[in-house]
């Protein structure tokens, strides 16, 4: 086994994998949100942006492959750690009590798994066209793939929007613990900055969840059509 692979198997090495891949995925979540928010700038803005992404060609595939590897490393490492952590306490306490741990922290594996399930559905829904093949055939008047119409059609379905909103709330919880943990894990801990590190996760979680949720709400409210 290579030195790097061995390192990733150690407890602290695995923490670093979680932290670094988590931060990269956080970057993706921000980028994806900023792109999606173009829906508020109108059909041409969003479709033009989507078209530019498609035009990246080979680079787009590089980004996709890197994202996939990062995503699989994050999920794989998390599942392995989860199994080890459960094995570390074979006999549970009859009385469970906590002093400081947060709800987001205790449920991070569950929120992560539900987000994973959502991502699979989301890709089949919008990217691969597995659930709604007609979406990929939509064209706008300029002849570009009509991402805008796809979003509006998708979110006009209350059930689809509901699932999306729940998934984004889970993402908010996940980021709230995950982002704050990032700093401690990579060794960034200093009394002067700790209050900021502690706040940045929950704040980012709330902002990102609201950002994403604003889109289906706007569609359902008829503000975006």
């Amino acid at each position: 086994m290579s030195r790097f692979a061995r390192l990733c198997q150690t407890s602290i090495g695995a923490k670093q994998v979680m932290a670094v891949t988590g931060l990269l995925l956080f970057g993706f979540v921000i980028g994806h949100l900023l792109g999606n928010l173009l829906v508020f700038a109108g059909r041409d803005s969003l479709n033009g942006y989507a078209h530019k992404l498609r035009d990246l060609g080979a680079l787009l595939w590089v980004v996709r492959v890197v994202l996939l590897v990062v995503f699989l490393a994050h999920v794989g490492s998390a599942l392995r750690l989860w199994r080890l952590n459960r094995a570390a306490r074979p006999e549970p306490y009859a009385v469970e009590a906590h002093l400081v741990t947060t709800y987001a922290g205790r449920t991070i594996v569950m929120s992560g798994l539900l987000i994973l399930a959502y991502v699979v559905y989301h890709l089949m829904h919008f990217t691969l066209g597995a659930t709604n093949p007609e979406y990929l055939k939509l064209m706008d008047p300029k002849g570009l793939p009509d991402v805008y119409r796809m979003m509006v059609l998708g979110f006009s379905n209350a059930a689809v929007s509901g699932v999306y909103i729940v998934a984004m709330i889970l993402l908010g919880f996940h980021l709230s613990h995950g982002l704050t943990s990032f700093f401690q894990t990579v060794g960034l801990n200093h009394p002067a900055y700790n209050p900021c590190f502690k706040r940045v996760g929950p704040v980012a979680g709330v902002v990102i969840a609201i950002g994403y949720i604003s889109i289906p709400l706007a569609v359902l409210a008829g503000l975006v059509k």
Partner: protein
Amino acid sequence: MNLTLRIWRQRNAQERGSLVSYEAKDISPDMSFLEMLDVVNERLIAKGEEPVAFDHDCREGICGMCSLVINGLAHGGRRATTTCQLHMRHFKDGDVITVEPWRSRAFPVVRDLVVDRTAFDRVIHAGGFVSSNAGGAPDANALPVPRDDAEKAMDAAACIGCGACVASCPNGSAMLFVAAKVSHLAHLPQGHPERAQRVLGMVHQMDLEGFGNCTNHTECEAVCPKEVSISHIAKMNREFIRASVLEA
């Protein structure tokens, strides 16, 4: 005060244990938790029953021998308090108190509330020391140590190795204990020659013992009777990254 205790009874490492209820009557609020258990045990012995086995030694809050998860919290969950320094005045008359041993795969139950913590000793053997050649004692202050480093090393060295961090961690992780030792010696010049092999060796042994992995719940810091800060875990993470990158 009169209390109902639900105490984990287990005859040995092989047999399954269970919670058994005991009435503890006429307990003085001035007793420590362990003194209360002493009274319960004296009454059990008088009745010809097996007393409850629990670990204890100094009863001054400095040795790290006492343990007990009380109502789900290691050492009872009061700030900077070991079980031997936990007093019955913090409980109410009529309370039902559940007393369990530290729960960790790496800390097997020996009997009742006593667990085997030699896993910690093996982690220390793996690098938690400074090798020094025999010879004349060096002059005091021959090695200058900056004040802040001395303070941080001292804060880490306050760890008494009780294992409350493991017991309280939802993941059964021992990182606060290991970090306290790694950080203590990494802050001092005497610890520097073996800095890299220490952190690599101790983390390797920690993993071998079957402790869980830190997910930053920070429960360990909250129950630590010596208030060892998770800033030492961050320090250990830095030490580990540094050693992993630089060492062959």
